């Protein structure tokens, strides 16, 4: 799949491991040039209006789930019941409406992309400061490989 694809990395590079999403998005932006919109986005709400017409949205964010540091998980949220399936998921967000809230709002307005994949990288250090943990940096490399693989062979299944 090479058209109507949005790739967005969420997070702040000034909050250590929270910078994983933007780091992945920057790498993807350097590697592919056929994506509708790619890059770091500071605010999840900025997805509104930018992913509305997309066939596929790949959103990269850091997570805190208790998994091994740097572990990469890919969640297909296309059919997820956000109220039921994500009951244990909250967004620690700067600006009130995080990624899950943005996806819920997009659905309420019939603007959600056809497919939404969340690529989450386990982090541990979210205090102020720059630089990723070494394991998270490895997770960034893994995430880039998986996204390129997804984009390269046209698969959107995970």
């Amino acid at each position, binding site marked *: 799949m090479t058209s109507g694809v949005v790739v967005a990395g*969420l*997070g*702040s590079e*000034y*909050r250590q*491991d*929270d910078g994983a999403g933007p780091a992945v998005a920057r790498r993807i932006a350097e590697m592919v040039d056929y994506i509708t919109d790619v890059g770091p*986005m*500071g*605010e*999840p*709400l*900025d997805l*509104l*209006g930018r992913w509305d017409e997309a066939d596929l949205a790949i959103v990269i*964010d*850091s*997570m*805190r*789930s208790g*998994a091994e540091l740097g572990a990469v*998980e890919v969640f297909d949220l296309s059919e997820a019941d956000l109220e039921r399936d994500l*009951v*244990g*998921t*909250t*967004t*620690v*967000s*700067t*600006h*009130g*409406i*995080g*990624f*899950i*809230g943005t996806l*819920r*709002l997009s659905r*309420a*307005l019939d603007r959600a992309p056809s497919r939404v994949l969340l690529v*989450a990288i386990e*982090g541990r250090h*979210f205090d*102020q*400061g720059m630089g990723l943990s070494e394991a998270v940096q490895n997770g960034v490399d893994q995430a880039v490989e998986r996204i390129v693989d997804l984009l390269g062979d046209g698969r959107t299944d995970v």
Partner: protein
Amino acid sequence: MPGDERNDRVIEVHGLARVEGEGSLKVAISNGEVTDVALTIFEPPRFFEAMLVGRDGTEAPDITSRICGICPVAYQLTACAAIEDAYGIQPSAEVAALRRLLYCGEWIQSHALHIHLLHAPDFFGCADAVELAKLDRSAIERGLRLKRMGNQLMELVGGRAVHPVNIRVGGFYRSPQESEISGLIDPLLRARDDALATLEWVAGFDFPDVERDYRFVALRTGHNYPIESGFVATSDGLELSPRAFAERVDEQHVERSTALQARLDGEAYLTGPLARFALNKDHLPAIALEAARRGGIADGCTNPFKSIIVRAIELVFACDEALRLARAYSPPSPSAATFEPRGGTGHGVTEAPRGLLLNRYVLDPDGTILLARIMPPTSQNQLSIETDLRQVVEAGLELSADALTSRCELAVRNHDPCISCAAHFLDVEIDRR
């Protein structure tokens, strides 16, 4: 209510929703009296102040822009003003006008976001904007259109909507062409109509009957509604230069909060839309004054819950002002003033969407930052917000715990506190059944 359990309780909200950042509030009531009110702020810009030391003064606009994803232009232009003050730079009139146009974009996107997605749900008893979208989809659609208008303006003038890249000390890296700016006129006309519709919408909300005796602090210019420059004025008649204001504001650290609490001459004060409107409504254009009349607050407003109306009036103003500036646009040439760094101290003040923002830098002779002070609106408003909370609780002791907690959260959201940018990772429980 003697013996009533409502007279002895503690209201706590650990993670305030729909505010910009990470904060919490706690109110203690004993024998029907409020004994403690604490708005706790976890996330200060102190990290950035430390990081600025040792950097070149010309880097300050880009570094400070990262403090907030909602109001990066405020941080950039305030830093520019402070460094230009230190270096003795006088940007051209064309640069000043283009900066004001850019700042209008930030006001439009920030006010549209707060009114429609963060504040309005409270007035409908909705948990969030998603619930409100199910009740009034057109209002949310309108809010998003307005937000996009603000983003479009910021993208064109600033290079991109989040953390713009076209701003530099002395002016801009690139002046947009006239044809690019004239392309904004039709969208701005539509946005102004949307803003007027938003004003009609919020003016019809039900508001708690609360009046406060605020000490207002806002910029004034004497010739227009303040955004990107001015002197500091107060509702009790003070007029201060940015330097004098910085000297008279005392910021104190309180243990429960990582933000400093500000007092002017020892007293709490309020900045933001209510203060700007109180001190500058005589400089609003006719269409915004008429909007104020229709909103029922043409003579002023001291009800914090009606701040959403004032914000809507400022939304009308920002669209109208952007339209005026776009029609009169003349590209700055050169796009930035040339200058030589020099040592000294510089102050900058501007009106961020949610209130007065001050930057102060001490620079060594080659322009390296030796000391940085950033005073955002929320630290200035924190004491006034706590006083609001005390009054709200005292007036609402008969309410249930849930209702009183909701009222307290609304009282905080009235001021759109920006608790500075934090992380926003996902907290996930993975059920692998």
